[in-house]
């Protein structure tokens, strides 16, 4: 019997003008969104490939470890047609250097800041607002309409229990909504594929279907709201107005209010204000550099001194001042000592960078996270915001996704530091020689042995240009982590649970009032 009612409702509603109009609007918007996003994705993908190729080339020809550097690139997500999530530019190339902890920099790759004024659409916005409205329009007269037509008595006098009747009617509407959402999603997917010139992987298809499931769950909540108002109101028009107020608040205003409140109620600091605090750790090291220069001023400034005796080669490494000397001639102890101290200071800069990151995190990231936490807890009370959250999670465009990338980049940078530590060298002028020695040999106490070693090696040490590239096969490799489907579902678990809770709440209320409904 439920099935009969559901089928009747489905067939009655699928050709309704409201469904037709919203479907047409949705298809128009989905076309615009998919064409623009697909096109953009194709450009970004090309850029990403170029960046990755460039990044892979970076480490190829290095001759000393001080030149070691790397770059990791955040790929664009083709699923951003569903949800653009937080508005960070992709692809994002993040340089990996021992002396800098990778972090998101707002000024990275903003193409046209003036375009930030405009909102951009994604399917989740269309579904969140338009289809939720459709859900209300399809259900607001479920009971009150039958009552006005006089068919409710007829229906209730049949063998069907009130509950069955309600389930059947709701199922019919939900089937219509699911059909429309599925067709629009599939249309969006196909258009993106056509315009971005790509084929989705299995993983991405699963993500897309999870998005669809969330959409249907979300629309069901609204279908329930519409049914609920139709039960409690005597007249369909009152029911509609009531349900529309609910829709307007939940789908249109609330998600905006949440973000607005979160960003206005809790302060964040300006980067300029904390800049001096950030510079402190490295400043201390640079002062030590200054002292070292002063101590060695006598021979550094001696015109017949090291400048004449050591041939230097400038390297475009971008890491500190990487001027490389093919080491010391004729056992210049003072210079050797100077270089070793410089190496130690360069190493200290690496620690200073980690310290700077700690301060940055405390002063800058934590207030941002606090805003985010406020937003998230406000969002828990808003089905539309929950839906948006789940959608961006399934589109790999949410903040968790970006943070995962930067966490990995930081991990990778630490691995690189450990790797260079193990090689016993750090960025400085002394590498060429030291990089060929063992770590134990880079020890200021052991000067005698080192000098002896140098004397033995003297004639066999080639100039930098003549060196063969280092073998970097044992160097750490960056691994981008993709979230497995299970992790995705696990992460979306609480969001799903809350949405289900709202659904059950609405359903329980509706059933309660239906049982109590006075037919007169």
């Amino acid at each position, binding site marked *: 019997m439920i099935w009969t009612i559901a089928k009747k409702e489905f067939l009655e509603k699928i050709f309704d003008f409201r469904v037709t109009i*919203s479907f047409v609007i949705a298809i128009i918007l989905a076309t615009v969104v998919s064409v623009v996003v697909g096109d953009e994705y194709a450009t970004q993908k090309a850029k990403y490939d170029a960046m990755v190729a460039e990044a892979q080339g970076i480490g190829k020809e290095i001759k000393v470890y001080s030149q070691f550097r790397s770059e990791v690139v955040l790929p664009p997500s083709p699923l951003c047609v569903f949800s653009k999530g937080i508005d960070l530019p992709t692809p994002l190339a993040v340089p990996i250097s021992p002396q800098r902890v990778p972090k998101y920099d707002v000024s990275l790759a903003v193409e046209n800041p003036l*375009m930030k004024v405009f909102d951009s659409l994604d399917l989740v916005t269309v579904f969140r*607002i338009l289809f939720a409205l459709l859900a209300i329009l399809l259900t607001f*007269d479920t009971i009150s309409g039958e009552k006005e037509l006089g068919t409710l008595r007829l229906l209730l006098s049949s063998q069907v229990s009130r509950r069955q009747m309600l389930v059947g009617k709701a199922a019919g509407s939900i089937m219509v909504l699911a059909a429309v959402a599925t067709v629009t999603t599939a249309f969006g997917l196909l258009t993106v594929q056509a315009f971005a010139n790509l084929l989705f992987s299995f993983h991405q298809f699963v993500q897309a279907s999870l998005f669809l499931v969330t959409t249907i769950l979300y629309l069901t909540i609204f279908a329930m709201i519409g049914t609920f108002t139709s039960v409690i109101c005597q007249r369909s028009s009152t029911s509609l107005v009531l349900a529309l*107020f609910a829709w*307007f608040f939940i789908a*249109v205003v609330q998600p905006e209010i949440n*973000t607005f409140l979160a960003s206005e109620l809790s302060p964040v600091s300006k980067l300029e204000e904390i800049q001096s605090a950030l510079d402190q750790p490295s400043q201390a090291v640079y002062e030590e550099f200054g002292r070292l220069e002063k101590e060695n001023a006598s021979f550094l400034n001696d015109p017949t001194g090291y400048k004449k005796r050591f041939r230097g080669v400038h390297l475009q490494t971008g890491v500190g001042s990487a001027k490389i000397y093919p080491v010391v001639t004729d056992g210049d102890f003072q210079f050797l000592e100077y270089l070793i101290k410089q190496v130690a200071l360069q190493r200290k800069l690496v620690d200073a960078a980690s310290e700077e990151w700690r301060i940055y995190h405390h002063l800058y990231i934590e207030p*941002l996270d606090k805003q*985010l936490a406020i937003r998230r807890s406000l969002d828990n009370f808003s089905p539309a915001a929950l839906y948006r959250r789940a959608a961006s999670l399934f589109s790999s465009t949410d903040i968790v996704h970006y943070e995962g990338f930067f966490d990995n980049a930081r991990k990778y940078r630490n691995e690189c530091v450990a790797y260079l530590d193990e090689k016993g060298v750090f960025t400085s002028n002394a590498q060429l020689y030291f990089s060929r020695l063992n770590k134990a040999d880079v020890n200021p106490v052991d000067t005698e042995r080192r000098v002896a070693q140098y004397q033995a090696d003297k004639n066999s040490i080639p100039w930098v240009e003549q060196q063969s590239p280092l073998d970097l096969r044992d160097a750490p490799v960056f691994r981008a982590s993709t979230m497995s489907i299970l992790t995705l579902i696990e992460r979306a678990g609480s969001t799903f649970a809350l949405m289900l809770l709202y659904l059950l709440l609405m359903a329980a209320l509706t059933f309660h009032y239906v049982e109590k409904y006075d037919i007169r």
Partner: protein
Amino acid sequence: MIFVEQRESGMFRSLVWKEILDHLLSFRFVAGLLFVFALFIASSLIFSKKYAGQYADYRQQQQAQEAALDVSKGGLQRLYRARVPTMKEPRLTLFFASGNESRFPQSLTVVPSASSRGGLYAGMNIAAQRSNYKLDSYHDFDIVFIVGVVLSFLAIVLSYDGISGERARGTLKQQLSNPIFRIQVVLAKYAAILIPLLIPVVLGSLVCVIVILLQTGQNILFLYPLQSLLNTVLSALFLSIFVWLGLWMSAATSRSVTSLSLLLLVWTFIVILSPSLGGMVAQRFHHVSGQADYDRKFQQFVNEALRKAPAAYSDYYAGKQSEQGWKDIEQFFETQNTVMEGMVVSRFNELLGQAETADRFNFFSPYGAFRQSVERLSNTGLSYHKKFFDASLRYRHTLASFIKETDLRDQESSHRLIPFPGMLSISTKPLDPNQIPRFALPSRQVSMMDLQNALPGILYLVFANIVAFFLTIGTFSRADVR
């Protein structure tokens, strides 16, 4: 005859009065009104807090500006190479239309010597702002949002059954059997919806004024009387479109419910979804070259320019200097600077062009037109950004010519205005800080130019009203009452 006319006008007035009372007492109006008031109060509280923060930032920036202009040591020579920050002023009119300014660059850096970037660091990164990249972008709850989204929704909810409701109840026949024209019935209904809707706009604005006055000591209405008035008029024009649409639909359909469903789908498209299309369309069809490309081109230009430098330039490094040589170098750099500045300006115009394309597309939606006109009248958003950029550029010229003129008056100076350290040699005498020109912000008041810029939007809204009016009248006068 006279008697009849008097009766008619009395009839019309009582009709309006009855309708207004009807609406004022309806559940939907009271619920909407309360919600709008709550929004007005909350957002004005938040705005005044934000305004205080912006003002503090602005003060700070002003101090930075003063510090950059403080040339008690170094005199003109230092001023010539100073980096002077200019900053947008926080405006109370941001509450009318925020223009999404929090997503914009707020400051620029002006360098009189223009040795690089045409003397204007276009400040195109927004790192200097208090924005959180971890949150999605959101809309400020300014008056445009409250009127444009919330009240227009309310307008539809109030008007959807204006005629079809009466028809369903059967009172329409009675109404029309009175000695009154159909057009008067429609006008009465129109006035009866629009007037209650304007109550929250006017009262809400007053509440905001009081809240902002208490919090910041400044108020919007009296500081910006013309702008407040124009904004109210624009709001009324915008809302009136939706009232006409509602009445039209209610005249055209037989069931109120159908009328409301259709109206809402239209409303969702016009107000919520279509304003996002402009940006996407502009991104797709109005391409701009990437920032990296532009930087590369700029650097190339600088490198090539140095290669084309006059012989005196290399002579200087060879240790040969002559009076004519200095003149040549100065002339050379002046020309180069003009070209470089041209590059900066054309880059800015290129970026602005893309944004303007988006604006032009959004103009098709009445909501976009409404927002744009209010922004232009309130001195916020894109148009203000352009004014600010122009003002900063003018400021560089003012500073540069001030330096040139003052230097000429110094007898001991060797008058070498060349933006390269080592070559630069102008007056180093201490300067009276009050003499140095200060950055002049774009005017707060609305100018003829702003009115002109806002005119297309206003005309569009008026035109949309007229069309909707004739549609309604046309449909209703042919409507079958049965």
